[in-house]
């Protein structure tokens, strides 16, 4: 979790920032909700409009996608972390309501964060692009909302576009999701059309928090937390029962940690202090907590003196499912990288990093992520915010290795594969992937899924779109599945997945040997039946990626001692200066010395120099 883009240190002046009443809002005038949408369907724009229309942020402070605080979030148009904003809305019934929006990530990698955030609210707006219809992410997130017992208000966005087909999309919502869509609110978040109707619908159609006694012992949910360089750890809370006041001594029921509340407030979306938070309200607290890791998401916060009887059910911590090695291109950057990784890890409990040494790449880290997007986000932040050039090795999943002696090993890195003769069997993680795709691309999508060892679970049609559900091995998806899917469907497919458990399969470790020496950073786990194909593809790629040397270089893929694919990079044939006389001695020698210095900077592996980009490019599959 990261600070909000609207600086919380901004001075809150101006007519739109009314002083927040010191009195608690009655439950009946609170609505807590989230927005469920597929990427690009207009969730962030809608959030911006709601904030704008209620005068929560001054016109001059408005900027697109207010709640997406990271550069990466804005650039990619995605939300990575849950953000929250408190909106005051004078409804048509004459009452002023407090609306708390928790903006959740839409991406599959953060599905677990979505499910946690949804437990803190009572309803959801389901935003669907009226020109596109329901997409895979919409489905996954709306089911999460349904599981959290949310009341759901469908909202059709982009209704102003000529391609909008509201009636068809309503039908689709009813068919595919199975919720009533007749009374869907039709809007254009871009032009502002229909926004007041959304606000009214929130008040009239979403429920108020079910119950809450301001005088009961405090029971508050720790929804999320993030690190702020000025305030320390900021904890996002939802009060279920009782009242939390500034200066209170609190206790985290699971960790047992005790703190004094320094500061209590709400996001509008800038931070605004309040004296107390009552039942149904969502806000933040700071309490001199040093690290995000000291807070446990889903923990129950209560008063030290007067504890509540029962903690809330809590959440399972999210666990990394995708691993890869990150190495600095320049070995001198290792210490900087270590600092940067520590800082990132403090703030992101789902990101793990352990030091790793690779024969090919030197010192680096084996890192665990929630998914590929998470991986990319962390890598981008390391490169961008900390200015470190990285080599990323092949992403891998966790394999369960069952040894003949009964021991079970979690394998995060193919390089650590135990002696195969001692292995009884290997299990790999499988996912249930849901893909929505226009008819004309269905064949390509099915072929892609079959090629990736998929088992078809379902194939249904909703209008001109097909929804296919596949059981796929996660390791076939982690690397470039999404890129391939986008490319074979020209970007028209949507994709989401959930883990469905582990299953045994015929898995082997494939090593790559360059000039007869294994290159650990290129080894990977593959299905035995696909090993030859992958091995051939890898060898061919490497042949193009490694420059010619003065000798020929065999490039081989092997399983154990058995070579399954081989290419030969022929030797450099000609590299000689035609003319070199008395006047050329100085200049030509300088050129050769420069060449020598340049070679020293490449990654030397045995006698072979392998360029950095080879490590990641070699893994991309073209077909």
């Amino acid at each position, binding site marked *: 979790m990261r600070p909000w883009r609207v600086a919380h240190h901004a001075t809150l002046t101006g007519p739109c920032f009314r002083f927040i009443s010191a009195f608690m809002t009655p439950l009946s005038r609170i609505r807590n909700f989230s927005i469920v949408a597929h990427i690009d369907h207009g969730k962030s724009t809608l959030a911006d409009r709601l904030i704008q229309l209620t005068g929560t942020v001054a016109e001059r402070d408005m900027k697109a996608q207010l709640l997406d605080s990271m550069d990466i979030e804005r650039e990619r148009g995605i939300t990575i972390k849950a953000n929250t904003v408190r909106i005051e809305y004078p409804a048509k019934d004459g009452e002023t309501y407090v609306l708390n929006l928790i903006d959740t990530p839409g991406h599959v990698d953060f599905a677990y964060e979505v499910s946690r955030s949804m437990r803190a609210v009572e309803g959801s707006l389901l935003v669907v692009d009226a020109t596109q219809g329901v997409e895979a992410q919409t489905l996954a997130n709306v089911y999460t909302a349904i599981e959290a017992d949310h009341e759901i208000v469908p909202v059709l966005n982009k209704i102003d576009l000529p391609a909008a087909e509201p009636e068809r999309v309503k039908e689709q919502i009813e068919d595919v999701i199975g919720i009533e869509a007749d009374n869907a609110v039709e809007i254009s978040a871009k032009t502002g059309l229909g926004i007041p109707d959304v606000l009214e619908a929130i008040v009239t159609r979403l429920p108020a928090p079910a119950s809450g006694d301001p005088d009961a012992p405090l029971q508050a949910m720790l929804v999320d937390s993030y690190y702020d360089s000025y305030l320390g750890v900021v904890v996002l809370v939802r009060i279920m029962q009782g009242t939390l006041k500034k200066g209170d001594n609190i206790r985290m029921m699971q960790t047992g940690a005790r703190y004094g509340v320094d500061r209590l407030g709400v996001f509008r979306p800038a931070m605004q202090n309040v004296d107390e938070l009552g039942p149904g309200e969502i806000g933040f607290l700071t309490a001199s907590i040093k690290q995000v890791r000291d807070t446990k998401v889903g923990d129950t916060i209560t008063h030290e003196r007067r504890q509540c009887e029962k903690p809330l059910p809590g959440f399972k911590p999210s666990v990394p499912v995708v691993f890869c090695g990150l190495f600095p291109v320049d070995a001198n950057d290792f210490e900087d990288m270590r600092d940067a990784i520590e800082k990132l890890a403090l703030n992101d409990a789902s990101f793990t990093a352990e030091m790793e040494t690779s024969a090919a790449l030197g010192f680096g880290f084996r890192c665990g992520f929630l998914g590929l997007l998470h991986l990319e986000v962390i890598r981008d932040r390391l490169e961008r915010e900390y200015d470190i050039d990285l080599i990323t090795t092949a992403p891998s999943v966790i394999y369960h290795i069952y040894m003949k002696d009964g021991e079970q090993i979690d394998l995060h890195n193919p390089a650590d594969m135990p002696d195969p003769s001692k292995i009884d069997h290997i299990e790999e993680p499988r996912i249930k992937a849901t893909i929505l795709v226009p008819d004309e691309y269905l064949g390509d999508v099915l072929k892609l899924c079959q090629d990736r060892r998929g088992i078809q679970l379902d194939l249904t049609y909703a209008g001109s779109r097909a929804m296919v559900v596949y059981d796929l091995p996660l390791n076939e998806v982690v690397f470039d599945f999404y890129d391939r899917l986008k490319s074979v469907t020209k970007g028209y497919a949507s994709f989401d997945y959930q883990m469905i458990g582990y299953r045994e399969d015929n898995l082997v470790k494939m090593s790559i040997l360059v000039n007869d020496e294994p290159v650990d950073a290129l080894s990977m786990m593959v299905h035995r039946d696909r090993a030859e194909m992958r091995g051939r593809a890898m060898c061919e790629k490497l042949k193009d990626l490694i420059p010619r040397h*003065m000798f020929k270089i065999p490039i081989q893929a092997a399983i154990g001692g058995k070579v399954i694919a081989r290419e030969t990079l022929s030797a450099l044939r000609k590299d000689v200066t035609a003319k*070199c006389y008395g006047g050329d*001695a100085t200049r030509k*020698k300088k050129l*050769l010395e420069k060449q020598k210095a340049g070679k020293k900077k490449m990654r030397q592996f045995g006698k072979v120099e392998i360029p950095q980009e080879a490590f990641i490019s070699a893994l991309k599959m073209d077909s």
Partner: protein
Amino acid sequence: MIEDWRNGGFGLYVHWPFCEAKCPYCDFNSHVSREIDEDRWRAAYLSEIDRIAELTPDRVLNSVFFGGGTPSLMSPELVNALIERIREKWTFANNIEITLEANPRSVEAGRFRGFADAGVNRVSMGIQALNNPDLAKLGRLHSVEEARKAFDTARSVFKRISFDLIYARQGQSLNDWRKELTEALAMSVDHLSLYQLTIEQGTAFWERQRRGQLSGLPDEDLSADMYELTQEICDQHGMPAYEVSNHAEPGAESQHNLIYWRYGDYGGIGPGAHGRLSLNGRKHATVAWRNPGAWLENAEQGNGDRINDIVSNIDQAGEYLMMGLRLQEGIDVVRVRDLDPAALSPEQTNKMADLGLIWQNGNRLGATPQGRMVLNSLITELLPDHPE
């Protein structure tokens, strides 16, 4: 122990910077000028000869080389005056070689007798190609017919003649080259310089290539095939390569160029000329003013050199290694190690020998035919690591 340069001998290089036209592939210091005050240039050259002679007394001179530019555009009288002065200043070796580069045109051919009378005993002719369309593409002003005539004239005047050909040209096939090279070998020459066309920065070809307008150049494989074919054909004709691009009948090697490759001493006279002179136990690298006008003025004032640097022993070892490995005869390992004890470690040489890229025979070490084709990479491997 003898001074290192004596292993390579001593020569003089005289640069005449003017041409009638600039060739699109040429990155040499050449200029087109219609008004040349020969008297002024003569005086400047003579003054430089005197200056270098004072620095290098009591030496035997092995070679003089008039290069350019187009030195065949000099008057025979000017050439005569310079050779006369050189003869006064140094003792000529019995077999001294005095070479002049000539364009194969009738105008210059008319001067050949005069050059020979002045003491020139070898010409190197820039024929470059034996077909007219390619000559035009290379920007040459002569035709094949004219070149052949000029060659015949030279043949009747000089005992030793070499000519240059450029191959691996645009659109040239392996067979085209085989035919042309065979024709060239049929002309009774004892020395051939066969250069693969390289696109050098600062030339018209470089600009054309940068704009994507230089098509049909051979790829690495064809260029390697052409090089190998060249070796094969020349070997068959008794003209083996004694250097990367130079072929000669045994005994007809260019004595002057051998001084460079054997890393001897040479004085550089004329605009942009480079020199290596061992003086008082230190090797000097000199570079004369490149611009003709600037050189002229400086030479008139007593010194045409713009740069005079000391070459460290380590750098001398590197230069010798780089130059010497171009030769079939290779290098003297003892000479290299005397200059740089860290050079040519067994670790480095064994690795290259295992790859079949170098041969070693007693104190001598050279590139094999295979090693010579990748000489730049080979030298890069053999140059010792010395922190800046």
